[in-house]
């Protein structure tokens, strides 16, 4: 049964489909991590003011700006 299913998948271009699935995954990982335009995309900007309860500073640029402002 399993052998028949495999054969059928192969006849339907199953080998190529598997290959495509793997390659698609690989490319998705690559282009997302390398896209030079990603940094400037407004939708990827984090919240301007970090929540005081969060315990983690997410927006370092913003924190630096505030520190400079306070020192003036």
């Amino acid at each position, binding site marked *: 049964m399993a052998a028949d299913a495999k054969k059928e998948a192969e006849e339907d*271009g199953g080998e190529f489909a598997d*290959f495509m699935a793997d*390659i*698609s995954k*690989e490319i*998705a990982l690559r282009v997302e991590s390398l896209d*030079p335009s990603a940094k400037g995309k407004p939708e990827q900007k984090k919240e301007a003011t970090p929540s005081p309860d969060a315990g983690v500073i997410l927006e370092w640029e913003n924190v630096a700006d505030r520190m400079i402002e306070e020192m003036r």
Partner: protein
Amino acid sequence: MSIVNYGTREITCKIVYYGPGRSGKTTNLQHVYSQLPEERKGKMVSLATDTDRTLFFDFLPLDLGTISGFATRFQLYTVPGQVYYAATRKLVLQGVDGVVFVADSQSRQLTENVESFQDLHANLADEGLDPRTLPLVMQYNKRDLPTREISTIEELDETLNFRSVPFFAANAINGGGVFETLRSIASMVLGRLSAPAPKGS
């Protein structure tokens, strides 16, 4: 160099199947071609002699469609294995991103395998490519032949694979190992996509 062009949203990679004459390079491409769905079947260009041996080279453009917003193309080439087509082999290697070395597992072909592998390294060096860093996988083909006629995988690996790159047993004529090999080299080539293409490329 493999190209990822963020301007035109394109990825193009060139993979060359290298190896001695009659080792099964064209057979690899023919199997890939046979598995393509109809809508993706472009033209496989194959120039063969009367005796079915590659005269110039085979070329199979693999248009994978749009992946993550990028039009993705793999270009698969073979080189003619016969010794006297050295110039063609050099030409086909220009701009290569990854190489599949297709070795003939038959014991009596071991010397031809070694010579072809040395020829590959010499031609890569001539092209200014570093054979130590270029993505490479080995394919030990014709594993379907009787055991008494073929070298063991260990023998082939010890003789040819001094870089310890990934290797695959194959019987390309029945499709065995063909896509495993292609998947491996494709993954290695994509792994080297580390920077946007320069302007105008």
